[in-house]
C-alpha cells in the first residue's frame, strides 16, 4: 500500500470512528436523520460500485430493499434476526442474479427498463400473494433494537461496502468492469466475460440493498407493500450517487449529505414538491455536473496542481 493510500485508510477509519460516536451525543432528531443518511450512504455507494464503472443505470434499489424488508417481516417470529439478515443478503443476490442473467447480456436500455418496473412487479406479486394466501396486508416487526443499534449496523455496512469497493477497484474484476464501461466491444475482444462480471457486481449491489432493507425493517415496525417498495427510493439513490459522482468510491457520499438534507427540508416545508425537486436534480446531473461533484473537484484539483507546477 502506498503512503497516500495508507493516509486515506487512516482518515476513513477516523471518520467512521467519529461517526460511530454520534448516538452518545444526541438521541433525538439528529440520530434519526443520521440513520437516514447512513441508509442512503450504503445504498448509493453500493449502487455506484456497480453502475459507476459499467454505466448501467439500475432503478431496482427499491425492489431489493423491499425484498429485504419482507424477508425480515415474514421471518421475524420464526428465525433469529442475524440469520434473517443473512437470508436477506441471499435473497437480494438471487433476485439480482436472475434479473442480471435476463437483461445484462443485452444493451443498457433493456436493463434500465426492466429495473424501472421491477419494484412495481415485486410489489404487485407480494400484494397479490398476501391478498389471496396471507392473513392480512400488513406485517409487524417487533424487536428490541433501538435507533442507535440500527445506526451502528448501517455504519458497519457502510464500512464493509467501502472495503469491498476499494478491493474491487484494484482487483481484476474491477479493471474488467472499467473496460466494459469504456467500450464493451473492446472488453469482449480482450477475452473478458462481460456478462459474468456485470452479473456478479449487480448481485453484490442487489444483496447490499436487500440487507439495508432488512436492517431498517425494525425501524418501521409496521410493514406493508406500499412502504417497503416505495419506488421513489430507487430514484433518490440514483440522484445521490450521480450528483456526488459515481466514478469515485467516495463520490456518492458527497451527494448523499446535501441531497438528504435538502430532501428533509423540502418534504417538511412543501410535501407536494418532492417530485419537482427530483426532476430538477435529474436535469442538474445531466446538464451541469455530468461527472458529479467528485468529478468537478478532481478537475479543479488537477487545474490547481498544474497551475503550481
Amino acid at each position, binding site marked *: 500500500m502506498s503512503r497516500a493510500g495508507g493516509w486515506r485508510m487512516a482518515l476513513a477509519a477516523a471518520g467512521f470512528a467519529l461517526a460511530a460516536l454520534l448516538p452518545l451525543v444526541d438521541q433525538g432528531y439528529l440520530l434519526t436523520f443520521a440513520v437516514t443518511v447512513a441508509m442512503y450512504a450504503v445504498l448509493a455507494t453500493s449502487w455506484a460500485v456497480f453502475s459507476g464503472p459499467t*454505466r448501467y*443505470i439500475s432503478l431496482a434499489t427499491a425492489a431489493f430493499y423491499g425484498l429485504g424488508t419482507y424477508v425480515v417481516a415474514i421471518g421475524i417470529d420464526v428465525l433469529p434476526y442475524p440469520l434473517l439478515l443473512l437470508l436477506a443478503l441471499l435473497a437480494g443476490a438471487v433476485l439480482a442474479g436472475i434479473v442480471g442473467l*435476463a*437483461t445484462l447480456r*443485452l*444493451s*443498457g*436500455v*433493456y436493463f*434500465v*427498463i*426492466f429495473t*424501472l*418496473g421491477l419494484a*412495481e*412487479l415485486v410489489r*404487485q*406479486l407480494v*400484494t*397479490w400473494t398476501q*391478498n*389471496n394466501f396471507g392473513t392480512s396486508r400488513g406485517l409487524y416487526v417487533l424487536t428490541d433494537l433501538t435507533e442507535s443499534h440500527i445506526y451502528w449496523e448501517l455504519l458497519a455496512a457502510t464500512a464493509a461496502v467501502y472495503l469491498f469497493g476499494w478491493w474491487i477497484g484494484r482487483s481484476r474484476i474491477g479493471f474488467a468492469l472499467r473496460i466494459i464501461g469504456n*467500450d*464493451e466491444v473492446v472488453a469482449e475482444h480482450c477475452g473478458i466475460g462481460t456478462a459474468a462480471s456485470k452479473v456478479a457486481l449487480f448481485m453484490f449491489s442487489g444483496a447490499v440493498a436487500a440487507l439495508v432493507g432488512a436492517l431498517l425493517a425494525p425501524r418501521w415496525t409496521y410493514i406493508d407493500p406500499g412502504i417497503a417498495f416505495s419506488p421513489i427510493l430507487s*430514484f433518490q439513490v440514483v440522484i445521490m450517487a*450521480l450528483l456526488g459522482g459515481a466514478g469515485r468510491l467516495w463520490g456518492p457520499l458527497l451527494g448523499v449529505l446535501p441531497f438528504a438534507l435538502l430532501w428533509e427540508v423540502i418534504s417538511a416545508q412543501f410535501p*407536494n*414538491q*418532492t*417530485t*419537482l*425537486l*427530483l*426532476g*430538477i*436534480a*435529474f*436535469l442538474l*446531473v*445531466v*446538464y451541469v455536473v*455530468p461527472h458529479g461533484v467528485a468529478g468537478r473537484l478532481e478537475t479543479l484539483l488537477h487545474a490547481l496542481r498544474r497551475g503550481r507546477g
Partner: protein
Amino acid sequence: MDIVITGLLLGGTYALIAMGLNLQYGVARIMNLATGEMLVAGAFAAFWCHTAGQVSPLLSLLLVAPLAFAGNWMVYRFMLRPLVRRARDPGQLEVDSILATFGMAFIFVGIMLAGFGGDYFSYSYLVEPVDIFGATYALNRIVACLAAAAIGGLLCLWLYGTRTGVAMRAVAVSPRSAGLVGIDVPAMSALAFALGGAVAASGGALISTFLTMDASVGVLFTMKALVIVIMGGVGDMRGAILAAVILGIAETAVATLIDPGLTLAAAYLMFIAVLLFRPQGLFGRRAA
C-alpha cells in the same frame, strides 16, 4: 371472445402510444421516458376541453396534436440536441437521454401536482353500450380504438409513401449513411421526436375517454409503451402494432381471469420472455 375483443380495443390505443415512442427512439435515438407524461398531458388537455368548453375529445385532438408537436420540437431542439452533440458514443447518449427525460417527467408531474393537485380526473363521453357478438362494450372504447387506428394508419401511409417518410426510415436504419445521401439528419430527428410526442399526446386524449387518469399515472404507460416497443423490435411499426395487441389481450386476460392488480406483472412476464427468446423483437432478424 369477450377477453379478445376488450383486449383488441385496448391494444389499439396502446399501439398508437408505442408508435410514438418508436419514432422517438427508432429515429431520433432518444429513449424518451417522459412519453407517459406526454400522454397524461394530452389526456388532461382533452379533459379540460371537455369540461370547460364541451368540446368533444376527438375535436380536441386538432388542438392537442399541434401543441404537443410544437412542445416536443422545442424540447428536442433546446434540451436534447446539446446531449446528442456532446455524446461520444451511442451508449453515453442513451444514459444521458434516459436521465434527462426522467428529469422532465418528474418536473412535469411536480408541476401538475402543484397546479392541479393529485386528484383523479375523468369525464363521461359516449358511455353507451354496443353489442358485438352478444356481449356489450362501451362505445367510447370502440371510438377510441378506431380513432387510434386511423391516426396510426395515416402515420404508416406517410412513413411508407412519402419522400420525407422514406428519409425518416433511412435515418432509423443508419444516421451516418442517411447523412451521406443528403438527408438533414438533425432536422429529421427533431421532426421524428416532435411527431412522436404529438402521437403520444393524441393517444392520451383518446385514452382519457374511457380511463380515469391522474397526474402520476404516466410512468405506468411509459413502461407499457417501452415493453411494446422492445417486444415489437425497435423501429418496427408492424411489430409494435402486433405487440400492442398481444399486450392488450394478455392484460385483459390476466385482469379478468386472475387479478386486476397483476396487469403490470403480466406485461413484465412477456417482456422477460421476449428478452430471453427473441431479444431482436417479434419480426426482427438476428444480428449477424
